[in-house]
């Protein structure tokens, strides 16, 4: 079908770069490229960037402000996070560690809670303002090749081929283009996590009261223990302006093996007494489920080829515990864009030029973090007691200690240690707990 274009000019020439996926990785790449004067086109399959994204979670201020300086002044952020807690739960008890800093409540901030559906949409607006072309409701179905080189993409629209010097794959978890580009073999379910989340409405005052927050400040809680019913995973609670995001993420493989519905886990989590208190009276707004690659360093594909780069979740750049995915996506998108800008100075987009991406990533906190945590997922999968036994021991111990009865404090101490050691040797336990804490803090 050819349409008279009226007084419009048909799109002239090809783009310098095509970005597949309008998530944080793709949009940060687009912002950086547009800033560098590159003609960039972002292709997103959803109705708008963020429309497919359920995440209501944390965006870290440092990496994000590199892409969009002082985004908190203009972007749709919910609350700056001044309070983080880690809980280990069992039955009706919880063992809590908290960190609070009022510094985090002022510039330059540390992290914000956001709704990704709004944040991504806004970030797309920023990218557009910088000159990027954002196409929505358009599915990228395949890559175009020029010999061995990726030369563009094929979309589901009529006259749908689009060429460019370089394609940045930023299509999120389960990236099939990465496979098509010959960069990986496809993810196995062991490296995928399933997250289920609910948004619950709660008045602002109640949120600040229940989470002991100053006016406008936010909290992020991570919770491990019995709530996931022995399956490796975590629960989380984040405060937004007048809603609370609450969810559970578990390793898909283990989940499937246990044949329990993810939704039941969320219900179980919400019924945990301490959790229940936080969300009492809150009314549900929406419920969503989403896949996250949890493979981390071990699950990463090759990151570049001739005319192609992979960033964000598509490159499995997710910290074992998923709270930092968007972070890494933003950073890696930016680095991919910097690589492309440098490549256009040389005028070549082959593997060698793009290998610069690998180098930049190695030096960035992305690879450092991913490598550091590369053993976490296997560790959690093989240490299932993290999610059952430990919380139980810890809680039994604390309960014993805090129960005032006829025993002296010294006797209690002895009793507790005996109780604990009977369950697991203390040397092992200390090591376990140390690793666990590192993995999630």
């Amino acid at each position: 079908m050819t349409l008279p274009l009226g007084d419009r000019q048909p799109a002239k020439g090809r783009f310098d770069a095509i970005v597949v996926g309008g998530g944080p990785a793709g949009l940060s790449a687009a912002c950086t490229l547009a800033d560098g004067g590159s003609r960039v086109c972002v292709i997103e399959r959803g109705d708008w960037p963020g429309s497919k994204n359920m995440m209501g979670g944390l965006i870290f201020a440092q990496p994000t402000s590199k892409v969009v300086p002082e985004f908190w002044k203009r972007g749709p952020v919910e609350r700056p996070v001044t309070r983080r807690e880690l809980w280990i739960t069992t039955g009706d008890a919880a063992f809590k560690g908290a960190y609070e800093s009022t510094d985090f409540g002022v510039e330059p901030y540390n992290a914000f809670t956001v709704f990704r559906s709004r944040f991504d949409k806004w970030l797309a607006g920023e990218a557009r303002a910088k000159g990027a072309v954002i196409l929505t409701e358009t599915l990228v179905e395949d890559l175009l090749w020029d010999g061995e080189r990726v030369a563009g993409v094929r979309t589901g629209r009529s006259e749908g081929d689009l060429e460019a010097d370089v394609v940045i794959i930023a299509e999120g978890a389960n990236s099939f283009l990465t496979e098509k580009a010959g960069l990986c073999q496809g993810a196995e379910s062991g490296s995928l996590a399933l997250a289920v989340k609910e948004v619950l409405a709660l008045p602002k005052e109640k949120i600040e009261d229940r989470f002991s927050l100053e006016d406008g400040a936010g909290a992020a809680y991570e919770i491990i223990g019995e709530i996931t019913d022995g399956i490796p995973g975590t629960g989380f609670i984040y405060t937004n302006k007048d809603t609370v995001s609450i969810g559970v993420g578990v390793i898909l493989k283990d989940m499937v093996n246990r044949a329990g519905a993810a939704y039941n886990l969320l219900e179980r989590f919400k019924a945990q007494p301490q959790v229940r208190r936080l969300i009492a009276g809150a009314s549900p707004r929406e419920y969503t489920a989403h896949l996250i690659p949890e493979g981390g360093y071990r699950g990463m594909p090759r990151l570049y080829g001739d005319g192609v780069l992979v960033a964000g979740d598509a490159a499995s750049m997710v910290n074992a515990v998923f709270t930092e995915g968007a972070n890494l996506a933003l950073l890696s998108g930016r680095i991919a864009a910097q690589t492309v800008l440098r490549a256009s100075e040389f005028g070549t987009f082959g593997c060698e030029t793009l290998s610069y991406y690998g180098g930049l990533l190695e030096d960035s906190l992305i690879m450092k973090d991913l490598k550091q945590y590369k053993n976490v997922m296997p560790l959690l999968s093989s240490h299932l007691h993290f999610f059952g036994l430990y919380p139980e021991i810890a809680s039994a111990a604390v309960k014993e200690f805090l129960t005032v009865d006829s025993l002296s404090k010294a006797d209690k101490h002895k009793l507790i240690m005996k109780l604990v050691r009977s369950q697991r040797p203390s040397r092992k336990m200390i090591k376990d707990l140390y690793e666990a804490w590192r993995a999630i803090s």
Partner: protein
Amino acid sequence: MAINSVVCVKQVPDTTQVRIDPETGSLIRHGLPSVVNPFDLHAVEAALRLRDIYGGRVTALSMGPPQAEESLRKVLGFGVNRAVLLSDRAFAGADTLATTYALAAAIRKIAAEEPVDLVICGKQSIDGDTGQVGPGLAHRLGMSQVTYICGLEEIDLEARTIKAWRQLETGRELLEAKLPAALTITETCNRIRYASLPDLIAAAEQPVEIWGVDDIEVEREHLGLKGSPTRVNKIFAPPVRERGEIFAAADSSAAEVAATVFDRLALRGVTLGGNGRSTSIADSKPVGDT
């Protein structure tokens, strides 16, 4: 000679997701996605098809908050030539009378630059659901009024007339209207095209013009809330019908369940085999349960 159209496009909340807060009695707007009023997409398609045949230009016009620009962007993607957003605080809170006042002023301004032969609206918006804006525009602009169009036949460029099929409750009528005309389009009128990639790219680079009160010739007292004769007095959740008796077919055979249901119906006066109106329950209908 060519046919120039102005298509009115409204951004509406996705009504399948609208809920009322039972405590505050107010609309829950949280996270409510916005969409282009589905009928307006058919209006856009109708305008584009006419342009395919007769040539001319299609301008999309919307009145709404700044984010309504998204809706215009979307219809630019279908190949609309120009997009204008009327956005100003002064327009806020408009009912259909104040809406047509502002839209008509904008259409007059567009018509001052190039003749406007057709104003095309969707048959109704899914939030307000009134279908009043199209006819209101026809009246204000002195255009022929043809609503609920289910098929466009042809335009006679010489005689300056358009022929269109209109869907009534009892059948369809073929109307001939003098141009300029204001049309409202139903979903059966056409199938919406999926824009080509080049069109979409061209649209993404096309600006949306934003007009405020000072860009059009209007008197402020006819705009927005001030210019609206209707007032929303209160909103509330729709009354709920009581959940009745539930039979599980699993507990007994289908025949038994069917028999039980007919017994219940008989108790309430429903007789079999026609003319139910003459049964006793017909009279028990409340008249305007206010």
